[in-house]
């Protein structure tokens, strides 16, 4: 292992600190405000939609804008995830993208 692999970059440190702060805030936030505020109705629906929406946004370029192999492999992964354990579906997705790339490109 080189010395480089043991270093902490200042910007990386800032990113980790920022992520740690907002994550802890999210963990204690609901507990802190619950006695004063009940999140319900549309605000609750909006909050509940966020994690799925963010995950969907993250993978949009890879799934829709990379190529037919990736789009097809994404569809295969979803079908596999509906029937199989999560890890099995991931392995099937990765294997299918390798095969599809070899066939299509």
């Amino acid at each position, binding site marked *: 292992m080189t010395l480089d692999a043991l270093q902490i970059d200042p910007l990386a440190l800032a*990113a980790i600190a920022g992520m740690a702060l*907002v994550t802890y805030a*999210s963990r204690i936030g609901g507990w802190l405000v619950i006695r004063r505020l009940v999140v319900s109705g549309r605000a609750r629906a*909006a909050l509940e939609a966020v994690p799925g929406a*963010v995950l969907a946004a993250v993978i949009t370029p890879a799934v829709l804008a990379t190529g037919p192999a990736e789009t097809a492999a994404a569809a295969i992964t979803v079908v596999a995830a509906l029937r199989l354990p999560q890890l099995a579906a991931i392995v099937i997705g990765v294997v299918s993208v390798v095969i599809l790339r070899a066939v299509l490109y």
Partner: protein
Amino acid sequence: MRDGAIDVLPAAVAVVPFALLLGALAAQKGISVPEMVLMSATVFAGSAQFVAVDIWREPVPWLLLTVTALMINLRHLLMGASLAGKIGHFGTGTSLIALFTMVDETWALAERRAARTKLSATYFLTMGLILYVNWIGWTGLGAALGGLIGDPSRYGADFAFPAIFLTLLVGLWQGPRTGVAIAASAIVAALVYLSFEGPWFIAAGGIAGALAGAVIGPADEAVTETVE
């Protein structure tokens, strides 16, 4: 203590391959072992860390990473709110420590426990501590080993992220309402991705999904809300 350890064991074992994979992918992005260990020890949130490693690049976009982590972790607000009444007897200091270890798995197990019997701080903290040490250890080991693997796209490892997130999405699915939020997010994310430099399409998609969720409204409270 024994109950907490036994109940959390399957989750601790199941997370090992994901932790190794996260560490390995992080190493390929140039994240060092100390950085990975520090991130796991302070953030301790699987989905947020996978997303962070996915969008990680040089120079490190710390603001974007922070905003994205916040959006991914918004669900914690609801989880903490639902736990508030069940950990009311913990005391403030213990609650602040217990909530640091609240992840999807410990939250779900604590909810199940609270439905059967009184939720003890020992039970909750035992689960949290086991998952915490487990997560730091395996993600750190993954980062240490990950640099040895080489070009990830050769064996499709670059597709591991989309595959992981797709399976998480399937797990989050709660009917057509989820589908509309996901579709709104994907459409806006695609448009922003094609129009603007940088990964702001993630925040844009997240906001579009939240707005879609608000427009559709809650599953069971829609009627009472319009009455109010």
